[in-house]
């Protein structure tokens, strides 16, 4: 076996069937009196946070752990850090481990930045000589300049975090564990941190990241592990895993929605079949879910409203995965309860980091719409002849509104879709272009 896989780097993190339970006390008495007097109250139940997970990570790999809050991903990271011990199963780690879980551990406010570098770095297990060697690099990375010899209590929170991050990132660990930390300082400093992480990765450091920022994981990791209720649900390329994960979240969310507000606006309609949405949903649910803006994502008077929304690719199949440079259609079915004056349809495409990539509506484009011509129900299709979005994840907003903005039905992030591309270009959108290179 070894001979056939000689090129593969060695396994540095080996997690075998790890289980972890927490005791949940209904009422935890921590004092003697409580323990002695209320023995019965101290009944506890076991909550299995991890129900047996196994995975291996090879040297130099970058792996993201994703999942909902409470799924066990942070517990997994804590087990890797050896802050927690498994109840059964084994974890084998090879090499020096550094964790970007707590930044600025052990900082003393009255001591200078320089002194605190020593304290903080020593907590990561660095010897005095090793810290001496890294000191200049850390100070440079923190961008603190002469402030480094001022007491830490005089620092702004941004300076504090920069110093803390600079130490943690310069530990030169073999394995780096990161928990949602890439929110340090301003945008430019964040970019610097990401660059530094890439450099560290290039040097062969194994990295495990827990994050809700799926985009960051996609940029950074070769593999994603999706943990769901203490078990590994899926692992593989971040792109594929996140796709499934998002769909799962979406489905479940809609499930919850439809439990409370019935199937009127359920995604099942849109994603699983394009036809049943049209005829299937009758008008009855519209009022109650209409006036109470369900979850801040959808609001409006609901005199007119969407019954289903989906995206079709060039073959006409309903999908949420699109390719750059190909045509696609946004298909929206609507229903009219009461005649509306001057209705307008609009769409918006928002990248998953909140950047609005494109937005338009029938008013802006001077497309006249008369209430009479819309009938009781119908279909609006936005035919996009060339998808110039670049690779990424996007939310689709759709709306029926008056020209002054009054919403009949405004549906924020009704669909999340993914665009992939063979060309890995950068920016917001692709400009139509050709290259002409000629020699003189």
């Amino acid at each position, binding site marked *: 076996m070894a001979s056939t896989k000689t090129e593969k780097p060695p396994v540095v993190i080996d997690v075998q069937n790890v289980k972890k339970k*927490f*005791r949940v006390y209904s009422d935890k008495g*921590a*004092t*003697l*009196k409580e*323990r002695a007097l209320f023995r019965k109250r101290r009944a506890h139940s076991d909550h299995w946070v991890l129900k047996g997970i196994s995975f291996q990570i090879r040297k130099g790999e970058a792996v993201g752990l994703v999942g909902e809050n409470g799924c066990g991903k942070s517990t997994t990271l*804590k087990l890797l*850090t*050896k*802050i*927690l*011990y498994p109840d059964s199963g084994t974890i084998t780690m090879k090499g020096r*481990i550094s*964790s970007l*879980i*707590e930044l600025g*551990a*052990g900082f*003393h406010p*009255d*001591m200078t930045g320089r002194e605190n570098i*020593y*304290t903080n770095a*020593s*907590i*990561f*297990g*660095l*010897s*005095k000589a090793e*810290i001496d060697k890294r000191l200049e690099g850390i100070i440079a990375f923190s961008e603190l300049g002469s402030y480094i010899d001022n007491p830490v209590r005089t620092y702004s929170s941004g300076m504090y975090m920069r110093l803390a991050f600079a130490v943690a990132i310069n530990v030169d660990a073999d394995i780096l564990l990161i928990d949602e930390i890439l929110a340090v300082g301003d945008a430019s400093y964040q970019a610097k941190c990401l660059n530094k992480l890439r450099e560290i990765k290039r040097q062969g450091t194994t990295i495990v990241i827990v994050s809700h920022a799926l985009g960051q994981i996609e940029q950074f990791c070769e593999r994603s592990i999706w943990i769901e209720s203490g078990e590994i649900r899926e692992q593989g390329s971040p792109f594929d895993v996140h796709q499934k994960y998002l769909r799962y979240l979406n489905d479940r969310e809609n499930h919850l929605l439809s439990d409370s507000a019935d199937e009127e606006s359920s995604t099942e309609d849109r994603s699983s079949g394009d036809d049943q949405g049209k005829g299937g949903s009758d008008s009855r649910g519209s009022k109650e879910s209409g006036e109470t803006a369900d979850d801040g994502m959808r609001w409006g008077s609901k005199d007119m409203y969407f019954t289903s929304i989906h995206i079709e690719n060039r073959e006409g199949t309903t999908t949420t995965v699109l390719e750059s440079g190909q045509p696609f259609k946004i298909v929206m079915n609507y229903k009219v309860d009461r005649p509306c004056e001057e209705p307008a349809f609009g769409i918006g495409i928002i990248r998953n980091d909140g950047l609005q990539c494109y937005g338009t509506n029938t008013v802006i484009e001077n497309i006249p719409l008369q209430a009479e011509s819309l009938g009781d129900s119908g279909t609006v299709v936005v035919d996009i002849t060339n998808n110039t979005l670049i690779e990424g994840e996007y939310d689709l907003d759709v709306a029926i509104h008056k020209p002054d903005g009054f919403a009949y039905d405004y549906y924020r992030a009704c669909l999340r879709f993914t665009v992939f591309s063979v060309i890995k270009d950068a920016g917001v959108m692709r400009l139509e272009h050709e290259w002409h290179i000629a020699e003189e």
Partner: protein
Amino acid sequence: MLQTIKDVWEYRSMIQSLVNRDLRGRYKASVLGFLWTFIVPLCQLLVYTVVFSIILKSNIERYYLFLFVALIPWNFLSSCLTAGASCIIQQQSLVNKIYFPREVIPVSFVTAAFVNMLYCEIVVFIVSLFSGVHYTPLTLLCLFLVMIIEYVFALGITLIVCALDVYFRDLEHILGILSMAWMFMTPIMYDISVVPEQLLPVFLLNPMASIMQAYRDIMYSGAVPHINTLGAAVLMGIVFMIVGLLVFGKLKRRFSEVM
């Protein structure tokens, strides 16, 4: 257990910086700063001298020195017992977030308290020289040995109490009372010779009794401690250290779940 000791050794620079932080951070914002380390024991000595030579006249000669020689080492142990008990809880943000051998925290705490005691011992040493105590290389060697023994013993105790305290917070308060009782059970304010003969064997079960006796032999009487006294102290120190490591090793696994 050997692995634990090896792990702790690898984190010696962490111990060093935690000790540093503790010692220097303590007086950082005060005007006199580090001088307080010496001022506090000197003032203590002054008070005892005044009280015991004017008000509570004792028939023990040079009572101030007699008391002081034992009181400083006792203060060290007592602070390990009371303040040391909460050392893990005090550092829970570290324990919950970062891996390092958990033993590092009690080791750093005891070491900082020990270094503090060493500074006080400098004062004691000078005072004893002025009071006419003679030191020979052998007694100095014994003094060094006794200090090491007390350190090991205090570390063993701290390992036990700080790990238990995580699970059971009342311990801090119980230990406050216990420490006071223990002080009176130990020949600090009185000489061991006043203890009734039939109680003596029980009395010597107290590890601090032999340690105190050894300090007093060296720094008050200027004599070499009896080999039995030293032997008992060494034995106790090692036993407590091993028990401490075992208890701590068992309890540390759930620290972060409980805190």
